[in-house]
């Protein structure tokens, strides 16, 4: 009896290992190499707990977007609007507060609802208006950025009144708490990111919903014939992407202490980049949350390392491009299967 359970366990374990694709291993190697490079080049300031915490915190904003983007890309879609939605949702939450408002809750709920609303507009255009995702979300990219500027007459909204306590010890669930608060020494925003990544992993790999998402991206016609509610699934991923953009807004504005109409610039490209170097196929039907997570970390490591080395912009851009290319080339053996 016990040998049988043991066998079952090792079988399940082997399966787990198999499901961790080569691609994810390859990117994990890149992450480790970058960290080692940082530790060698900046031994005093790079491999410190403080800096790791800093990199994870920075990852969280684009990371949350990238989790949503993974679902969108898994259906063979794309969402170019998330960066603009971050800006629009922040400003919307800010003006919702009014002149003397101090309720973090109003801001947080307002921003998330507004981002979800914009995501729903994307979803409607793509799923029911049959607009190509690239075009529908490109339009939203422009609309949301315009709204961000329009809503408060091009001005940033200061959120510093929402501190909910002193800087050192923010009140739990206040906006600032999401920005600089810590639980057991780990920043709250990192907890939020990890929680969303884990929920995303479970949803994608262990629920009917996730299975449907991949089916739609893998073979839309076959999915329809097998009874997958294709349109509803497509609709849902854009709503999800908008909702997560709202969470991302909260994490960003909390740290920034203001909601700026020009924030979130090109975040969509960072998110898409992280998803794709993570191994999710732009053609749909293949998605990995672990890969996305590592992709986000890769970008954060590159950014942190290059800023610490004080490289000039042009060198930074070339280096970043080369590292991304290298990371993708490392994964090439996978492409054959």
């Amino acid at each position: 009896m016990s040998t049988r359970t043991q066998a079952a366990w090792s079988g399940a374990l082997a399966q787990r290992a198999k499901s961790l694709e080569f691609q994810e291993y390859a990117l994990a190697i890149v992450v480790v190499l970058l960290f080692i490079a940082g530790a060698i080049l900046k031994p005093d300031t790079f491999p410190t707990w403080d800096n790791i915490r800093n990199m994870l915190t920075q990852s969280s904003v684009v990371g949350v977007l990238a989790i949503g983007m993974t679902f969108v890309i898994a259906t063979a879609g794309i969402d170019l609007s998330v960066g603009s939605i971050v800006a629009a949702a922040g400003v919307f939450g800010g003006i919702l507060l009014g002149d003397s408002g101090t309720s973090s809750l109003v801001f947080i709920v307002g921003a998330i609802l507004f981002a979800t609303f914009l995501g729903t507009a994307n979803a409607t255009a793509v799923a029911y208006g049959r607009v190509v995702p690239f075009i529908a979300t490109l339009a939203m990219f422009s609309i949301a950025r315009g709204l961000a500027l329009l809503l408060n007459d091009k001005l940033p909204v200061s959120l510093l009144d929402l501190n909910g306590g002193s800087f050192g010890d923010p009140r739990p669930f206040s906006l600032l708490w999401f920005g600089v608060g810590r639980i057991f020494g780990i920043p709250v925003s990192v907890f939020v990111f990890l929680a969303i990544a884990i929920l995303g992993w479970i949803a994608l790999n262990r629920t009917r919903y996730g299975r449907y998402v991949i089916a739609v991206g893998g073979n839309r016609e076959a999915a329809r014939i097998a009874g997958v509610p294709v349109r509803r699934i497509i609709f849902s991923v854009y709503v999800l992407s908008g909702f997560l953009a709202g969470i991302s807004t909260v994490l960003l504005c909390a740290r920034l202490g203001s909601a700026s109409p020009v924030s979130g610039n090109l975040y969509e490209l960072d998110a898409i980049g992280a998803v794709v170097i993570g191994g999710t196929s732009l053609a749909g039907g293949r998605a990995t949350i672990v890969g996305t997570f590592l992709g986000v970390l890769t970008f954060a490591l590159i950014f942190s390392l290059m800023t610490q080395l004080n490289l000039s912009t042009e060198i930074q851009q070339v280096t970043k491009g080369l590292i991304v290319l290298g990371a993708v080339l490392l994964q090439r053996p996978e492409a054959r299967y």
Partner: protein
Amino acid sequence: MSRMRLFVTVAACLALGLGAAACMGDDNKTATTTVTVGETTSAGGGSASGKKVNIIASVPPTDHGWLGAISKDAKAAAEKHPDVNFELVQAADADSQAQQIEQAISKKPDVLVVLPQDGAALTPVAQKAEKAGIPVVNIDRLFTAPDAATATILGDNYQIGVLAADYISDQLKCKGNVVEIQGLAGISVTQDRTKGFTDTLKQKCPAGGIKIVASQPGDFNPDKGLTVMENILQAQSKIDAVYTHDDDMAQGVVQAIRNAGREDEMFLTGVGGSQDAMKQIEEGGLYRATFLYNPNMAASAVNMARLIGLGEGFSDLVPPEVPRQVVVPAAVVTKDNVSEYEQYAFN
């Protein structure tokens, strides 16, 4: 331009009748003569001719405080003149701005006023306008060819760097670690603000007591400023001053410093003169100074355009003409004089 007297520098090469190319050189700072133009400037030129002047102004989208003020001031200036028909167009990027200017040319206005997204990229279309007989007044960001504009009015970004270096080196007594958070890489504004800063630091502190420990672009964007500063704070255990290229972007930098709890360790300066920045300067603390040239240079540009359109000149110049290049000098705003400047603040 009533209380603060505008110092307008007129390119010496123009007065000497030399080719305009020399004006574009880096050494134009030394080759300019300062001429004081009085109140008559805005009133200058008679509207007796009864002719209407059609002016089209093309500017980047006003998502940035300083640019917002530019648009507002240009409109306000145009409204003061009953003989001006004024149209303002905005373009999101250099390509669409070029298209807009093409369209504007086809409308045959008397004068074009252009604040280019990217001076180099828009030079050809400006040259085209000039060739078509439409004079171009260039604001702030320079075209790269001398025949692209009839007149140029620009803020002295190099001088902003100079003033910042003066201020920071005085405060630090030529000793300390300085971080520079630049604007958008690859445009002349950023380059000038950096060059003025580094050149002057070398002059003022020849012993090299001030070290620029990090110099990174923040893209004039608060969230980029935030993340870049977060990383720099990780790398640098001791920072005495931060020179940022823009007040809005500086808000992100301020926040990074506060989040790290290091606001007592250093001070910070901005550029532009936003209300937020002035408020913080007044309150004292981290934000010590900002450097600005007044966005109402756009009003001057519209006035210049009108004079060009009417075929007249500044009456105080001999002979009265519109100068080829007007450089608006920069000023320092600190806690001591912030009350004087608050009226120029924009948001």
